[in-house]
C-alpha cells in the first residue's frame, strides 16, 4: 500500500509527502487511530487530504496509508430504518460501542455483517445476465423487495448461484463469468459516492410527487424525478416542511439527510417516524426511510461528504426500480463546508468566499435527480429536494442563486408569513414550478377536467390581491369599489382556506389529492357565487362575517381525508347562507349600478 508522511496540518486539512501512488478522491487512513480521510489534491511531492474526523493531536511525521480505492458507500439490505453519519458510519452501532458521544477513531462497518437475510434467487445457473439485473430478492420490509443486482459492468453467464436460504450480506450468492473475469456477487456492494450510478436512459418527467401539501401539489408541484430548492431565512419553517414532505410524499424510499443542522431535529425524526403510518400503505414510515445525520457540530469534511453518501444510497434503490425521494437539509451547510475546506487550501475565492467550482458542484448534485429506465429496464425515479439557508434571507446570495439555475421547482419561504404563524410559509408569488405542465395531465384525471383552469384562476386572484394591497396602503380599504374589495375578500378566504395547512394537525398534515380537488372546487364555487352577489349589490365585507365563511376557512382542519362526504354538507350550508344574502342584493341593487366598474 502507498504511504505518506504528514508535514502540514491545518484543521481538517493535511499535507503529506507520499511514497507510492495515490489517486484523487482515494480513501486513506491517518495515523495510528486510522482516521478516515480522502485525497483532494495531488502534487509531485505532496498529497493533500481532508479528514472526516476530529484532527486534535495529529503531529507531523504521522503516517497516512492509502487504500487504493475511492471513498465508497456500502450498499445492501439493512439501510432502511437506520441512521448513518456523513461517511456512513451506523450511528446506533457507534453508540452501542462508543457511548453517548461521538469520539474519534470509530471503526464500525456500515452494514451489519452478522445479520442474516432470507434470500430467494430469481435466476438459474447457466442463464445469461446483463449488468444491473437482479439475481435474487430479499423481502426487506413488508413493502420493499430488496433486489440484489449484478454490478453494472459484469454482464455474462451465471456459473453458479446460491439456493434459497438465509445469508449474511458478505456471503457469495452467485458467480458470473464476464468478459472481465469471474465476478462474485453478494448482497453487499460498494459504490464510490462521488460517481453517479449508471442507468439505461433518462425519461421525461410526467407524474407529480404527491406530498399531501396543497400549496405544493396544487400550485407548485414537484415531479417525480425532478429537483426542487426551498430557500428561506431562519425560522421560516424549512425543516418542518422538509420533514413533512419526507413523511407524507408518495415515494417508495426516502433518504433524509440532516447536513449541518440540529441534533435535536434528527432525534425528533428518529422519535416520530417509527410512530407514523404511511397514509397509503399503512406501514410505519421508518421502514422506508434512510437517515443521514451529520449535525452542525460534527466534522465539517464529513458534512461535505454526507450529501454524496445519501444520493448514492438513493441511486442504489432507484436502480432496483423504486421511486426514491431525497431530502437534503441544508444545501447551504454543505456549500459552507466546501468553502471552509477551500479556505484551508488557500484557493482563490469567488463570490463571498465560496470557491469558483461551487456552481459546477451544485449542478453535478442536482443532475443526479431524474426519472430513469434502469439497466434492467424498469422505470424508476430519484427526486431531490434541498433546503437553502440564505444569509439574512437574501435570495441573491450565491448558493440560492446558483441552486435556482439547476432546479425547476423553487419554493420560496417567506419571513412575514412565518412570523404571522402562517404555515407552510411558501410565498405564492415568489415561488414557481416548471413541472406544472407535465403534472397537469395527471391532475386532469384525478382532480377533475377543470383543475388547471381553477388553479389558474386562484393564481390570478393572488396577483390581483398583491396589486390591490399596494393600493390599500395608500387609499385605505374602504375607498376601494366593491368589486375590488371582493377580490380581497375572496383572496383572504382562499389563502386561509387552501394555502394554510398545519403540519401538526392530525387531520390536515396530509391532504389527499381527492380532498385537495374538493377544497379547490368549493373555494372556486364560493368565489363565483360571491361575485354574483356583489354584482347584485351585496357588500363584500359582510360575506366575511358569515359563520359559514369561517367554516370554509377551517375546512382543511375540520374535514378529514376519510370524510369527503362532509364537503356536500358544507356546500349546502354555504348555499343556504349565501341565498339568505339575496334579499340584500335586491335592496341595494340601485346603489350598486353607480359604484360598479
Amino acid at each position, binding site marked *: 500500500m502507498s504511504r505518506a508522511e504528514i508535514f502540514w496540518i491545518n484543521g481538517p486539512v493535511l499535507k503529506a509527502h507520499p511514497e507510492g501512488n495515490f489517486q484523487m478522491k482515494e480513501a486513506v487512513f491517518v495515523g495510528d487511530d486510522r482516521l478516515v480521510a480522502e485525497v483532494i489534491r495531488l502534487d509531485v511531492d505532496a498529497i493533500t487530504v481532508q479528514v472526516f474526523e476530529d484532527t486534535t*493531536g495529529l*503531529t507531523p511525521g504521522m503516517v497516512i496509508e492509502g487504500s487504493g480505492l475511492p471513498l465508497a458507500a456500502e450498499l445492501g439490505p439493512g439501510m432502511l430504518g437506520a441512521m448513518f453519519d456523513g461517511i456512513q458510519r451506523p450511528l446506533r452501532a*457507534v453508540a452501542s460501542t462508543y457511548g453517548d458521544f461521538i469520539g474519534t477513531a470509530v471503526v464500525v462497518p456500515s452494514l451489519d455483517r452478522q445479520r442474516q437475510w432470507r434470500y430467494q434467487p430469481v435466476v438459474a445457473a447457466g442463464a445469461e445476465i446483463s449488468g444491473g439485473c437482479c439475481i435474487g430478492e430479499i423481502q426487506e420490509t413488508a413493502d420493499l423487495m430488496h433486489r440484489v443486482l449484478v454490478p453494472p459492468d459484469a454482464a455474462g453467464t451465471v456459473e453458479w448461484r446460491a439456493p434459497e436460504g438465509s445469508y449474511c450480506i458478505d456471503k457469495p450468492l452467485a458467480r458470473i463469468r464476464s468478459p472481465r473475469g469471474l465476478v462474485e456477487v453478494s448482497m453487499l456492494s460498494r459504490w464510490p459516492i462521488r460517481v453517479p450510478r449508471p442507468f439505461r436512459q433518462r425519461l421525461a418527467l410526467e407524474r407529480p410527487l404527491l406530498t399531501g401539501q396543497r400549496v405544493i401539489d396544487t400550485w407548485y408541484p414537484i415531479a417525480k424525478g425532478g429537483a426542487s430548492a426551498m430557500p428561506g431565512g431562519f425560522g421560516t419553517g424549512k425543516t418542518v416542511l422538509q420533514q413533512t414532505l419526507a413523511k407524507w410524499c408518495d415515494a417508495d424510499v426516502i433518504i433524509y439527510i440532516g447536513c449541518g443542522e440540529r441534533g435535536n431535529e434528527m432525534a425528533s425524526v428518529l422519535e416520530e417516524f417509527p410512530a407514523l403510518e404511511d397514509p397509503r400503505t399503512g406501514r410505519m414510515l421508518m421502514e422506508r426511510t434512510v437517515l443521514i445525520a451529520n449535525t452542525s457540530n460534527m466534522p465539517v469534511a464529513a458534512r461535505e461528504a454526507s450529501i454524496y453518501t445519501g444520493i448514492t444510497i438513493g441511486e442504489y434503490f432507484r436502480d432496483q426500480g423504486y421511486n426514491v425521494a431525497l431530502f437534503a437539509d441544508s444545501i447551504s451547510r454543505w456549500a459552507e463546508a466546501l468553502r471552509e475546506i477551500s479556505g484551508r487550501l488557500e484557493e482563490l475565492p469567488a463570490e463571498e468566499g465560496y470557491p469558483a467550482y461551487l456552481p459546477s458542484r451544485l449542478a453535478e448534485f442536482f443532475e443526479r435527480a431524474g426519472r430513469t429506465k434502469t439497466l434492467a429496464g424498469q422505470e424508476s425515479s430519484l427526486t431531490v429536494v434541498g433546503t437553502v439557508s440564505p444569509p439574512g434571507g437574501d435570495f441573491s446570495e450565491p448558493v440560492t442563486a446558483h441552486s435556482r439555475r439547476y432546479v425547476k421547482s423553487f419554493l420560496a419561504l417567506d419571513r412575514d408569513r412565518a412570523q404571522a404563524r402562517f404555515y407552510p410559509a411558501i410565498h405564492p408569488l415568489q415561488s414557481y414550478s416548471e413541472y406544472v405542465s407535465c403534472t397537469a395531465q395527471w391532475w386532469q384525471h384525478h382532480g377533475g377536467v377543470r383543475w388547471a383552469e381553477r388553479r389558474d384562476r386562484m393564481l390570478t386572484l393572488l396577483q390581483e390581491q398583491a396589486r390591490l394591497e399596494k393600493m390599500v396602503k395608500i387609499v385605505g380599504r374602504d375607498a376601494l369599489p366593491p368589486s375590488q374589495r371582493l377580490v380581497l375578500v375572496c383572496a383572504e378566504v382562499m389563502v386561509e382556506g387552501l394555502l394554510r395547512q398545519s403540519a401538526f394537525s392530525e387531520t390536515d398534515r396530509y391532504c389527499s389529492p381527492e380532498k385537495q380537488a374538493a377544497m379547490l372546487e368549493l373555494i372556486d364555487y364560493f368565489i363565483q357565487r360571491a361575485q354574483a352577489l356583489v354584482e347584485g349589490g351585496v357588500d363584500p365585507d359582510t360575506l366575511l362575517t358569515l359563520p359559514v365563511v369561517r367554516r370554509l376557512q377551517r375546512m382543511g382542519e375540520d374535514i378529514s381525508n376519510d370524510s369527503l362526504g362532509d364537503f356536500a354538507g358544507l356546500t349546502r350550508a354555504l348555499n343556504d347562507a349565501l341565498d339568505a344574502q339575496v334579499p340584500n342584493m335586491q335592496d341595494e341593487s340601485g346603489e350598486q349600478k353607480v359604484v360598479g366598474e
Partner: protein
Amino acid sequence: MIAPQHYLFHTGLTSIQGPLIFVRNTQGVGLYERVEVLAAQGGVRLGRVVFIADDKVIVEVFQGTEGLSLGEARVKFLSEPILLNVGPSMLGRVYNGVGVPIDGGPGIVAKQRPHIDGNAINPVRRDVPREFIETGVSAIDAMNSLVRGQKLPIFSGSGLGHERLASNIARFARLRGKHAEEFAVVFAAIGVTFDTAEHFRREMDEYGAMQRIALFLNLASDPSAERLLTPRVALTAAEYLAYEEGRHVLVILTDMTNYCEALREVSSSHGEVPSRKGYPGYMYSDLASIYERAGRISGRPGSITQMPILTMPNDDITHPIPDLSGYITEGQIVLDRDLARRGVFPPIKLLPCLSRLMNHGIGKNMTDVDHPAFAQQLYSSYAQAHRLRLLSSVVGEEGLSAADRQLLRFGERMDDVFIRQDDRRRTLEETFDLGWMLLAELPDETLVRLSDTQIDDHIKLHRHGR
C-alpha cells in the same frame, strides 16, 4: 489521542503577530495541543497550537501577547488539549474566563478532566426535549414555550434590559407540577462589563440563589482571545453538572456578540479569507460547536438548556451574528427598542420570536389541550393588528373598518397588558386567562384558528361567564 511525553520547552519564537506566535523547532507537537507561554517578567499565558508545517507551528495565545519578546519568551507544549478540572462543589463559585476559581476559595478537586471542546452527542442518543419550563414570562410561556434541553437565545440591542430578563428567567424558571425543582445556573460573562456581571451576582444573592450558580467571568477588560474559551469552559462545567451530577442546568451566555468579534479578530490575524462583514466562513460551524451542546441524553437524568444572549449590531437581525445563531438555535426571543421606549418590560417583539421545540412541549397532558390553537390565534390576530398599525399610520385610523379598529386595539392591549409584566412572575394559568380575555374582545369570525368548541369553552366563557 496525544501520546504522553515529556513537556517540551522552546525558545525559538520567530514572530509575534497580534494573538499569534510563530515557533520553530517543534518536533512532535500535535494539533490543538495546550501551550503555556512564559514571559520574561513572569506569568503564564494559555495558548493552543492551531497550525503546523514541518517543524514550525502557530500558537494562538488566549491571554494576550503584550510584553512578550522573541528572545526571552519561553513556550511549553503540554501534549494534551485544553482540559478543565471538574468535580463536586462547582456551584456557588466564581471562576475566570478559563475556569480557574477567583473567589479566594479552594481549587476544584478534579474528578474528571474533560476536553473543553467537548464531543458531539450522537444523534441517536439524544432525547427529544419536551418538558415544558414555566419561565413566568407570558410572551415566552404562552407563545414561544421553552423546553428542557432547548437552546433559545435572546436577540437584543444595547440597553434593552436583556440581562434583567435573563436573571428573571433564571430566578423564575421551574417545571410544572410536583417535580418543580429549580435549575442550576451556569452564567458565562463573555466580554461584558464588571457591573453587568456583578449585578447578576448580587441579584441572585439577594434571592438566595447563589448556591446554585457557577459564574465564569471574562470581563470587557480581559484579553479578547480568551473569549474563545469562556463559553466552552462554562459548557464543560455544565456538562459535568448535568450528565454526571444529574442536574438540570440553565446556561446563560452573554454576550455572544463579543465572542464573535474575538473570533473575527483572531481569524483576521491568521489572514483567512473572510466571509460576510469580515467574519470567518466557519463561524456557523464554530457557533454550532457551542450551541449544539444543549440537549438531553437518553438514560441520563440531567439536561442542558441554553439561553445565549447577543446584542444585534445596530439592532439588525440580518447581521451575521444573529443570522447564523438563528440558523443553529431552536428559535429566538427578540427584544425591541420601540417597546422599550414605551416602557414595556420585557420589551419582547412577538412577531420575529419563535420557539421551534414548542410543539413538543405543549398541548394535551403537558400544558393545556387548547394551548397550540391559543398560541396560533394570538399570533395570527397580533400579526393582523401589526399590519393594520402600519396601514393606519399611512391612511389614518378613519380609513379602517370597525372590525379593523377592534383588531388594532387588540394589538395595543397585547403590548400593554400581556407582554408588559415588569418583574412580576406569572403562572401559566394567569397567562392563559389573560390571553383568552384579550381574544374575547375580538369578534368570532376573526378567530379562524379556533374551533367552535374552543370558542364555546373559552371565548364565550370570558364574554358572559364573568
